[in-house]
């Protein structure tokens, strides 16, 4: 693997975080059928206000069937690379070989601060939240349109105001 420069690493990670923020939060509001596609098949921990949720499919189920209309607004967010050579276990088993690793084989941390309104209408109170994600490379080799380069490995949502 060629060693990527700090510039490239910063560019790739911050742009990936931005892309994630710009699609995931709108999806929580109005594209809930797509939610499971944001998740790794075997996430370690998904938490909403201390409630443990098993996986992306369960998150999607909760948001599609149990949640009132919801509006999220991200007010501040930041990200950092955790592991720039993340060991991806390929779908067929075994580690992705070093020779095939590129700059996108990074895992990274995203921390978001914003507010959410539950229920319809702008008059609903704004509840501040803080949310932490760890995103890891998508192990799947498919090249379909809309394929996500990174998936949620862990997630922790908390209302804080």
């Amino acid at each position, binding site marked *: 693997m060629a060693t990527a420069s*700090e*510039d490239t690493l*910063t*560019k790739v990670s*911050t742009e990936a*975080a931005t892309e994630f*923020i710009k699609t995931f939060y709108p999806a929580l509001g109005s594209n809930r059928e797509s939610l499971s596609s944001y998740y790794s098949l*075997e996430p*370690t*921990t998904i*938490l909403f*206000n*201390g*409630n*443990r949720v*098993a996986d992306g499919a369960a998150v999607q189920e*909760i948001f599609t069937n*149990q*949640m*009132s209309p*919801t509006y999220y607004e*991200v*007010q*501040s*967010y*930041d*990200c*950092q*690379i*955790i*592991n*720039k*050579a*993340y*060991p991806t276990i390929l779908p067929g*088993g075994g*580690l992705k070989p070093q020779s095939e690793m590129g700059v996108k084989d990074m*895992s990274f*941390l995203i*921390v978001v*601060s*914003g*507010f959410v309104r*539950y229920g319809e209408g*702008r*008059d609903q*109170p*704004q*509840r*501040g939240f*803080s949310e*932490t994600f*760890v995103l890891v490379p998508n192990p799947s080799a498919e090249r379909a349109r809309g394929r996500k380069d990174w998936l949620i*490995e*862990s997630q*922790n949502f*908390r*209302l*804080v*105001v």
Partner: protein
Amino acid sequence: MKSMKSRRGGNDRGGIRKRGPTRTDRDGDMDMDSGSARAKRTRAEKSALGGRAAGTGVGGRATGISNRAQARTKHRDSDLFERAVYSNNGQANVISGNKKTGGDLEQFSVRGWKSSKAASNRDGGLESLIAFLERRMNSFIKSGPRAKITKSRTEGDTLVAFVRPDLAGHMLRINNNVFAGAHVTVEEYTAATALDQELAAADPVPGSTADTKTKMTTILGKRFFPATKLLDLSKLLDDPDLQAMGIFHNVSTKSKFFPALMKVWELGFKTVAERREAVESVSLAENNLSNISSVTTLAQSFPDIQHLDLSKNNIKNSQAMIGWRWKFRNLVFLDLTENEISSDPTFKDTMLKWYPKLQTLNNVQVRTPEEVAAQKKTPIPVLPPHFIDESQVGENFVRAFFPGYDNDRNSLVSSVYDDQSTFSLNVNTTAPRATQTETAGWGEYIRKSRNLDKISHLSARMSRSFKGIEKIREVFNELPPTRHPDLIAKAEQWLIECHPVPHLPDPTGQSPTGVGGLSLMVHGQLEESIGGKIEIRSFDRTFILGPGNTPGGIRVVSEIFCLRAYGGHEAWSPEIQALSQIPQIAAPVPIPTAAPTPLAVPAAVPGGNVPEGYGLPRPGKSDTQLQQEQMITQMSGKSGMTFEYSEMALAGNGWNVELAWKNFEQLKATNALPPTAFIAPA
């Protein structure tokens, strides 16, 4: 906020600059609502004022038009002015103890322009005054960025202008220059001068400011009942002391009386907290108010009151109260009996909508406490913290980190960061807050804030991320000193969650699959001392912890520190007292100076007798075994079963995770699994 753009550097794009929006922005840190809500409110206020500004002041007869209100009616189409007026109403920053509430900007008061020829302009001469100030400053500048009034607002006859610190000298040089035929006075604007000016304006006998202050203090003393936390400002017109002062004889002093009274009140308290706690109820009954414009500053001085009595006034409709639409968020009791507004068919609905905690309106119950509580309910119930630790690494880290951050950042940095650690911070300047509190600027924090929503240039994104022990030490030492609440005595003010994360970089480079660690999320509050005043902020701090080259063997791999206005801690008080998996940071234990135990990796779940090195590559351990151990770890984490049962489930399904999971779900649904299959809650 979009306003960041206007502050970024002083270089103008060309000769023609856009007025208004680019300069009259407010500090994000004073904001209560989202930008759009604010815009809506500003519009609403504007329409409320249309043709209505000539309402009565506290005085009774329809004469109490302040300069401000006059200006509003006259120039309400001017965007610049509207924003200035808004910031005047919404910004409770005048007596905040610290002089500069404009972030890094310096404030100057400009007076005397009201008697200039420009004062008869459509906007009262503000536009030309600002242009004049900028022109004068630019005439002093030989090179470098052009001078600019970054933002401004009016307070009666004073223009408060905010400029970059490097322009301070130039501003002062304009003092006594002639603007459109009038000499203008330019001085540094401080809380003290603001009060003096306010008092002087409300002063019936010019020059007796100190006397006025004393008398107002006496009047407030008589009307304040500490035992019941009531400030009774009813029937002010009939107050013999006020009558004796002659406050109400003069149109101008009458309208300025109330704001001055509020400032005198605020000065009587050392801290905001003390002031906030002193009063729960205010009465403004029987004051002949036809709208709230003359008493609007009440909302800044008493943002948290629960009871407000406005009975026996002349308030006609909700428009007459629109300035308080977003104020008094804790209002439980509101009395508007004997006001025309009470007979409006939409009155009750409007007030319920405006004040989410309102329970009693005109002495009738309109909402039960349960209904108030139900509003707060979230679709996903709030549970106690999820805290899955690993050999107490997370717990020990928290115990050491926050006292260390408060008391000895140098040692802290040396003990838990190494040359691969990364740190960055960001400020959410528009976060919702618990109460409408004054907030000091974000100073040092905002200069380092890496909010990716605002910081879009790659170079800035790079320079605001700090890697390695020395850079982190430097940043920590530049950030303001803090005091965090005690982790045990004030446990309710903290929310600390923790869970394992796999595949962190291995500092030894030996493990191709990396090493395990913890994700630790801490929400809480911190205090800073700013200009002798205690400021409370809320924060969210996420740490990724893993093995590293530190004295204790544990390093912060990544840390993101988010700051925001104080938001309280009620949001995480559990709705359901569930069986918590949390060994809540409980019994007092001596605080270690550094996290002592190395992480036993990866994601081992407590409760099981997990052998050292489980799930880790080791000499002699086959790849298959390693993979199986990792699958067991994951299965256990996901299902809550012990390692033993997790292994049974996997092995029994040919190590197919999906089948094993389905099998587990079936067994669980039919209660076929014994209690011993599950890890006992700690």
